[in-house]
């Protein structure tokens, strides 16, 4: 008998022999403090939480300003910048040719290549933003893969303010319907550790800096 049959047979036998554990309140309504159901409250919550997590938040009126902000953020960086193929990012580059120029050289490099370890900054779009926890969520299929958001020391995320949600429920619903992704991640601030004497240090293995360029207005 193989291990699978052996384990399952045993579990099934015990399942019959021992009564189920009582579980009186399986369904859960709201258990958490959460933002009110309007855009303003969600933005307030998000701003407060994201900044407390040491995220850098740039709220920009319109796409041109957002593009300018990104150019400014990456202008002084050593090494190349990797940008994900994403409709919003495409629009920002059409808006500002200087940004497209800056990014042109790096676009070619495949993030599966070994030189990718030298990448100074990854730019990706977000699936959604979670106001309740100040998190950015993304999935591998729509975020330029798995490495782009974690290997470079600096991660820039671009999102529209319409992508701001309360918490994870709507995103989960979307994930379940989409069959294209292999990895989905909830990112709450730049990488951190407190393994040495509980002292908080940023930039453990993931990005040291996490910036969100939030496009508001039209």
């Amino acid at each position, binding site marked *: 008998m193989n291990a699978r049959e052996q*384990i399952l047979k045993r*579990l099934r036998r015990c399942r019959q022999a021992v009564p*189920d554990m009582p*579980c009186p309140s399986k369904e*859960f309504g709201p*258990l958490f403090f959460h933002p009110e159901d309007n855009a303003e409250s969600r933005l307030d919550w998000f701003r407060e939480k994201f900044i407390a997590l040491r995220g850098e938040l740039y709220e920009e009126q319109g796409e041109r300003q957002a593009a300018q902000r990104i150019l400014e953020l990456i202008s002084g960086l050593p090494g190349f910048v990797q940008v994900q193929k994403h409709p919003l990012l495409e629009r920002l580059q059409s808006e500002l040719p200087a940004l497209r120029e800056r990014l042109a050289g790096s676009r070619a490099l495949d993030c599966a290549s070994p030189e990718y370890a030298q990448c100074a900054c990854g730019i990706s779009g977000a699936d959604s933003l979670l106001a309740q926890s100040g998190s950015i969520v993304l999935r591998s299929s729509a975020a330029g893969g798995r490495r782009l958001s974690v290997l470079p020391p600096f991660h820039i995320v671009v999102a529209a303010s319409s992508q701001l949600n309360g918490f994870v429920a709507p995103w989960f619903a979307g994930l379940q319907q989409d069959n294209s992704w292999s990895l989905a991640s*909830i990112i709450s601030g730049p990488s951190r550790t407190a*393994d*040495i004497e509980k002292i908080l240090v940023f930039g453990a*293995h993931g990005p040291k800096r996490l910036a969100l360029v939030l496009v508001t207005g039209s």
Partner: protein
Amino acid sequence: MALAGEYRSFLHRSCVKAADASHHLKILKAIASYDTAVEAMKKSQFESWERARQVAASVKRDAVSRLPELLEQFEAKAVENGVEVVWAADAAEARAAVLDIARANGVRQAVKSKSMTTEEIELNEALESIGVKIWETDLGELIVQLAHERPYHIVTPAMHKSRAEIGELFHRTLGTPLTDNAEELTQAARVHLREAFCSAELGITGANFLIASLGAVVLTENEGNARLTTACPRIHVAVAGIEKILPRLEDLELFLPLLATSGTGQQLTCYNTIIRGPKRSGEPDGPEKMYVILLDNGRSSIYAEEKLRVSLTCIRCGACLNACPVYRLIGGHAYNTAYPGPIGSVITPHLRGFPGWQHMSSASSLCGACSEVCPVKIDLHRLLLENRWHAHRQRTSSIIWRLGFWAWAAVYPHRKCLQMLQPFFRLGSRLAGLAAPRDLRGRIPQVAGRSFSELWQDYERKRTNS
């Protein structure tokens, strides 16, 4: 004798640590900062922490009750996602499965993100024995790996080491310039492991949750090392205990904040990652192959025990370790097991056998602090009593222990018997007082000259006479 051996060395290690003031100071400092963060987060995040615990306990108990069905559902979905699922009845089978994968894929280097199941099956030693270089990538785990120690704590593996000690260790093993600055030390680990992430062929993780409806593995972490472990190498192996199952993706809405709050006092940890298989077509990167190893290793024996089954609902947050006065005093290494503290004391005898490990059931003051903090409301201190009872029934407890309790049960319910034995008790307490170590002499409580019931009878007699 194995039994006495493990028990005796446990007592020895406990005594040494209990007397080590500098150890005590480090642990209290770390736990104090944990306590502050956790209390604040419970209040600021949850409308009612108590209600959240009740709901979490219900969801997880339901999941564990339905374990066989949910595991089959998980397996079917995972296979659909292109994951190879391997079942392992014990630690040896799990190790063999990982070694087979490593051999078949010509693996020479592996990176591992923090995982307690791989500690449980002692995977590092096995991989090294076939010549695979294995890197622990969680900072705390790297520290204990370099020091050739076990993790001290299931969430904070290097809690027992000071900055200065870590600085000295890094200087000696990695050649880092001598420093006690936490930021510089973290940076040194980052630089040291970057190369490993990019060159390793195999990435090994545990699983914080398994989602049955999606066939997905969920990992929660702060450093990004689990993200890198599952992004760079071409093979990903997740070693998961069978009890890690949750029925639905939506359950994470409660369990991720619950685990983060109880584990480290955060609302959410920095990275919460849901992985359902290797790289898909159309994705630019990710592992070509993914394996999930479903580990039993004694869990199905716990499942068979009606009262102990609830211990399978544990989400390994470590809150009971931090709350336990015994753990705080003797520390994580005294237990000599992958899982120390109250939860470790409950499950270890079932995972590794009662004869050698039942002494852990007594490594508790039964104060109930562990049960009070448990986010899924496991009555840990009662389960420790249950284990003692189990040992008694299985006759694996020592003969003196059983004889003593037999005598106690025979005598105690009868007042007359107690009365008759009283001179012996008195003599016993006096002898104990004389035999006590010098600093305890005079502090051993003595059995009173006359018992309460004798005094009461006197009192009654006087009252009726007057």
